[in-house]
């Protein structure tokens, strides 16, 4: 599973870091980035897939997507 976090969409709700703190880090204003070492270009470690999926489903602004996007 590869995930993309679109930080131009993120509004700082912080749900992602609640569900998957090993995948998402928040800055002091509450805005998320992928944790260092993770990238939208690389597969997530298998143990992080379930929490990442919960974060994806729970993001209020749909800033998290799975890659590749189905079209």
């Amino acid at each position, binding site marked *: 599973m590869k995930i*993309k976090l679109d*930080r*131009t969409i993120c*509004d700082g709700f912080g749900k992602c870091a609640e569900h998957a703190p090993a995948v998402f880090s928040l*800055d002091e*204003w509450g*805005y998320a*980035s992928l944790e*260092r070492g993770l990238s*939208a270009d690389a597969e997530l470690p298998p143990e992080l897939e379930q929490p990442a999926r919960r974060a994806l489903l729970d993001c209020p602004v749909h800033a998290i997507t799975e890659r590749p996007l189905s079209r």
Partner: protein
Amino acid sequence: MPALTTGAHPALPQGIVGQGLIRTVPGWESRAAYEAGGGYRPGLRGAALIDAVAGRGLRGRGGAAFPVARKLAAVAARPGDRVVVVNGEEGEPASVKDRWLLRARPHLVLDGALRAADAAGATTAYLYVSDTAAAASLDAALAELDHLPVDVRVVQVEPGYVAGEETAVVNAINGRPAKPSEKPPRPFEEGVRGLPTLVSNAETIASLPAVALGTASRPPSFLMTLGGAVPRPGLYEVPFGTPLGEVTEVLGGLAGTALRDVRGYVMGGYFAGLVNSRGHGLPLDYDALRAAGTGLGCGAVTVLGPGDCAVGAAALLLAYFGRENAGQCGSCFNGTAAMAGVAAALARGEAGQADIQRLERWCGFLPGRGACGTLDGAVNVAASLLREFPGEVRAHLHRPCPLCAEADFLAAASPFALSPDSITPPAGVLRPAAPRPASHAEAAR
């Protein structure tokens, strides 16, 4: 404002079309003049051109220094139709090179665009600019050409720091605001009209004809905008590896003793941050500058003289980033504003040790937390201030600085910005674009 000059480093052949990017003959270079110098002649194409570009070690001159051959090959390898975009937006206010090239040597850029489109397998080439004189120059040059092998279009957008970022370029051409997007996808995967797109800086593209024709300068060189506290700020062609102090002295015109008064440099436009006077000895080379914790970026360098304070300069630059960021990523619009606030307080003598510690924390935490490089540029400024000028930072704690007291941090819209309008003859090459009615220029777009 002192007049800007253009020129070439003494180690380079002077004024020979095809050997360098600077042309010392004043005025707009017509198709006839460009062809008389060897332009538009058949040269290496396709994979052979890409190999020659790789052999030359050409890297993107917009600032990111990505290997050009790899980008070209990546687009060329994609199936279906492809697009080439010449990025001449030049959002770095301290840089004039792309606007100068587009205004003075549009055929060199067009020749490069046609060769890039051919090598990438593109049927459309966009010339993306924000400078009205550059757009008029390109229109005039296109009017001199017929039977172009690809569809060539000039796109003009409002200028902006982020408008030249490659995904902002694609977004603008696709009819959206000229703001960056989160990556991936990158333009080579999905760009203009969703097609694989090569977005390449105007100077980079202008470097291609000489590579294709085997006339590229030895040693390899680049366009450097030299600004700030030098008698002869201007646009210069400089061999890679030249020590920065030598450029400041030989081209900038700072005599030997005055060189000792140089406090430091702002590197890579606004992006690569500050270096102190150790900058004199740094070679203008991608890897050497990166190893020294700074960067060549777009090749614009601002000299900080005895009347400049490094803290004040950092405050000006951070205020710029705080205003000119895209306002999209929360870490960026908050982080740039926060760092700008601390730097301004420091310049006013109102910051304390706790503020410096906050700045240090942001410099460690914020890099990479934006969709584009704007936040990283701001971090470079803040981190380099702390690293290169610790004594000056300490001296500003709780104590106003007389130099900073004179600076108006909010009034300086684009600190250290140079205008291509002030590049003057005779050493200067720039002239207004070929005289033609404005309505004609509009109709051509």
